[in-house]
């Protein structure tokens, strides 16, 4: 979801920037620690792949389509911190080079999709994989889309509470949770099924590629 600048109050996005900055600093250290000197090109390549993933259309019944986030697939295949750092870079590139999304909404997107989405996807993937690998990938894809939708719905719905005028009228995003939660959660619960299916197919192909390269 690309929320433009102007709908999130500074009272929310400034603290979120502080939180995201801490996680970016820690994430950079983690990625550097887990990898070797090739960290920088690795992160760049994963960012490019993550950026390009968002251009893949997810087919929906009726001939329509939605776009993939790929967070579940990235987290399941490459871990939380790689997914978080790559997704954050993608949001920054989209906002500052293409004007897609916003600079003030960047920390919300990075924390909801890149961090919480990746954390939940990786956790669920690791928990379910011993029992059923396919189901683990599916759940990683689904939760990687659904949980960020829930967090973004909560953040948007909180705007009228944290930023309103003397008469109580909203100054930024106008709708409360009674509107944002069903408006975002119902479609994303269904879209998550498509993202889950794609994560199963994509994850299996990646495993096959890894086996192939491992045998070479």
């Amino acid at each position, binding site marked *: 979801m690309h929320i433009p600048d102007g709908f999130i109050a500074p009272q929310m996005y400034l603290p979120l920037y502080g939180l995201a900055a801490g996680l970016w600093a820690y994430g950079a250290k983690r990625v550097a620690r887990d990898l070797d000197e090739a960290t920088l090109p690795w992160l760049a390549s994963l960012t490019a792949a993550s950026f390009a993933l968002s251009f893949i*259309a997810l087919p929906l019944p009726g001939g329509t389509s939605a776009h993939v986030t790929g967070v579940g697939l990235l987290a399941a295949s490459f871990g939380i911190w790689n997914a978080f750092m790559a997704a954050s870079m993608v949001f920054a590139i989209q906002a500052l080079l293409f004007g897609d999304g916003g600079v*003030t909404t960047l920390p919300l997107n990075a924390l909801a999709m890149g961090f919480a989405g990746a954390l939940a996807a990786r956790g669920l993937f690791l928990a379910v994989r011993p029992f059923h690998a396919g189901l683990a990938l599916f759940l990683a894809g689904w939760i990687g889309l659904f949980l960020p939708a829930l967090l973004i719905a909560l953040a948007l719905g909180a705007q009228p509470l944290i930023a309103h005028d003397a008469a109580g009228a909203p*100054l930024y995003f106008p709708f409360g949770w009674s509107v944002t939660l069903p408006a975002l959660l119902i479609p994303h619960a269904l879209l998550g099924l498509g993202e889950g299916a794609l994560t199963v197919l994509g994850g299996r192909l990646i495993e096959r590629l890894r086996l192939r390269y491992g045998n070479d």
Partner: protein
Amino acid sequence: MIERGKLAAYLAALLTASWLTAPSWLAAGLGAVLVLCGLEAGRLLRRALLATAAFSGTVSLAYAAYAWWQFHTLPLDWLLTANLRVLLMALLTFLFIARVNLFQALAFSRRLSFLLVLAVSQSLGLRRTLAEFRLGLQSRSPRPAGIKARYRAAAHAAAWLLDRALANAHESAQAMQSRGMFK
């Protein structure tokens, strides 16, 4: 140095605009940014409108309908304030994109510059290949491809992207190493 100053000015202007809640100040800010855009004002304004229209339009229409249904009145203050603010911030961003070289603005950090250059150059290449994949699927399908075929194609594209990312990372690391980047 100049590009860094422009980046700082853009971020300061964006922060200021996000605090504004009076339509008169927002309109004045929009006017000032349009003057700064100069001859490109029309083009940049059009881009800003197109980039924000879907989200802003949906929220504005829904809120106007909700207010009319509940109170038989239109929230004109909110509609004006929110839409002016969104437009001003989007226009600032498109002016920044048009006038500032982001790669130079981030040149204060060698690693950040390399990361951005590598990521953006690879992103554009991967995006082009994805478009070719899409056209390939269309050309292979005499009739519009079914949902199963499109899923399979999307999954292959996703796996190919990640596979390509692994290969790109390896090649870039070798290229950078051979040029003494990691010493």
